């Protein structure tokens, strides 16, 4: 089974899994916070925030990647600062994770926001009258009831991160072992004669991961409804 994929292909799969995992793990807290803010608070600039969150979904990925390069590149305003404390994104796997995280963020926030909106505000009020502060209400009422939605959002984001190509290749290029994720590897294999069989294998891996993620997130989404319904 292990020799079904060559070392080059394995490297791409392993890197993709690592990139996708960190992309989701690092953006999840911010995703939950953003989803909560969009679902529950009203503040000036809410529509603007909503727009920015969804921007990667509608912009050409190359544009997002280029903007990341401008911002987080070694000479960029944020990237330059981070460079001084030893955090480098450009042309590293961390940059691939950042690009994947940004591209997957809208999907994650959308799923979590929907499940927060499904929680009845009246239950949160009941929690408050029983002595729970807003933070405790969030931790003991809102969060547990949204948990399946959060997991669904995370899985969806994971699948999206696994397949991210345009922004990644623009931002961190296509360096074997460093930034060559599955899609970049497929692209690279297709550029050389005789690479089709390797590309096909990776296509198979991609399809399997995507289908599994979609299935699991569907099941979890249904459980949100049941949970909120008190079953």
């Amino acid at each position, binding site marked *: 089974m292990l020799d079904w994929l060559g070392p080059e292909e394995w490297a791409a799969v392993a890197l993709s899994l690592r990139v996708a995992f960190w992309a989701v793990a690092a953006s999840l807290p911010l995703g939950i916070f953003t989803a909560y803010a969009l679902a529950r608070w009203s503040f000036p600039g809410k529509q603007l925030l909503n727009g920015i969150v969804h921007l990667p979904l509608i912009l050409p990925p190359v544009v997002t990647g280029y903007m990341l390069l401008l911002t987080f590149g070694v000479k960029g305003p944020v990237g330059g600062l981070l460079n001084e404390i030893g955090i480098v994104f450009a042309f590293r796997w961390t940059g691939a994770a950042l690009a994947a995280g940004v591209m997957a963020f809208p999907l994650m926030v959308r799923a979590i926001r929907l499940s927060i909106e499904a929680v*009845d505000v009246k239950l949160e009020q009941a929690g408050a009258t*029983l002595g729970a502060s807003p933070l405790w209400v969030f931790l003991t009422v809102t969060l547990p009831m949204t948990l399946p939605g959060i997991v669904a959002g995370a899985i969806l984001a994971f699948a999206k991160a696994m397949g991210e190509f345009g922004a990644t290749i623009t931002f961190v290029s296509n360096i074997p072992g460093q930034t060559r994720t599955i899609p970049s590897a497929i692209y690279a294999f297709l550029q050389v004669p005789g690479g089709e069989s390797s590309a096909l294998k990776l296509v198979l891996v991609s399809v399997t991961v995507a289908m599994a993620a979609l299935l699991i997130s569907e099941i979890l989404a249904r459980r949100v409804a049941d949970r909120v319904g*008190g*079953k």
Partner: protein
Amino acid sequence: MLSVDLHHAFSGFTLDAQFEAPPGLTVLFGASGSGKTTVINAVAGLLMPDRGRIAVGDWMLLDTGRGVRLKPHRRRLGYIFQEARLFPHLSVKQNLKYGAWFAPKDAPREDMGRVVELLGIGPLLERRPGALSGGEKQRVAIGRALLSAPRLILADEPLSALDETRKAEILPYFERLRDEVDLPILYVSHSASEVARLATTVVVMEDGKVVRQGAAAEILGDPDVLPMGAREAGAVLTVTVKTHHADGLTELDAGGEPLFLPQIAQGPGHRVRVRIAAHDVILSRSRPEGLSALNILSGVVHQVHRGEGAVIVAIDTGAGRVLARITLRSAQALELATGVAVHAIVKTVSVASSDIGAVGG
């Protein structure tokens, strides 16, 4: 003692309510849209009024003049909502313990076992709210509110989402709450029979204002105060159970006069409140004879109140104040006026068991 003074303007509606709720159960009584729920939500802190002052004893919940506006979670209230609002992801037991966890450690608290016993929810503890009936949910909600170590209990029409059978199931628990738990209770209702059974004090609201407040018997026996209209009028008598007869009737002592009702649950010696609906009372100038009705209370007309279509007559009898709803024609034919001696006839079977409640103390 709860004291409330609120001013709040919505678009098209102004709330301007002042009242005091002494110990016991105070019913905020009025038609829908009269502002009852607004008042109770302001007491809970779920609504911040423009101006106002709310205090439980010397515990200040709100004093806009001095900038005191406690957040709901700092008010130490047990709020029983219309829909139970149990947490669906927690078991009944976890729901019950939820409030206690946030209460100050030194707060005087109810014993979990006693509350579970009081409400009869022992067999439900391990279940999820989704698997409970409406009545069971509401009992758990009462327990959850009680166990949060509150200084005040709030209830917003807690029975209105239940059918008649479930209402009859829950009402006794509120009577026990009133009689056995030493906390002021503010209870919103638009049901005259709930008021009759539960209220120690009644605060009548109309168009965002408090129009009357006083003891339950006094308010319900006043023909000028009919927030639900003349059809719902009915006075409350406090009577003592004397004997249960073999033919299914219970004989009660109403201020020296005998009163016969269909068999009631309480044993001899117990005091009960009986609501006599005004439309179930017939008036006669002379003492009637050969009548199937068993209860004839003689008294004197206190007041004749002309409403639209009907007349409400208040009669002071030996048993207490009774209201009768009769037609204008009958009132004229009997020449009813203040001071006239009459006999009030109450048909025994017309007193529903839901109109009979326990009296504490």
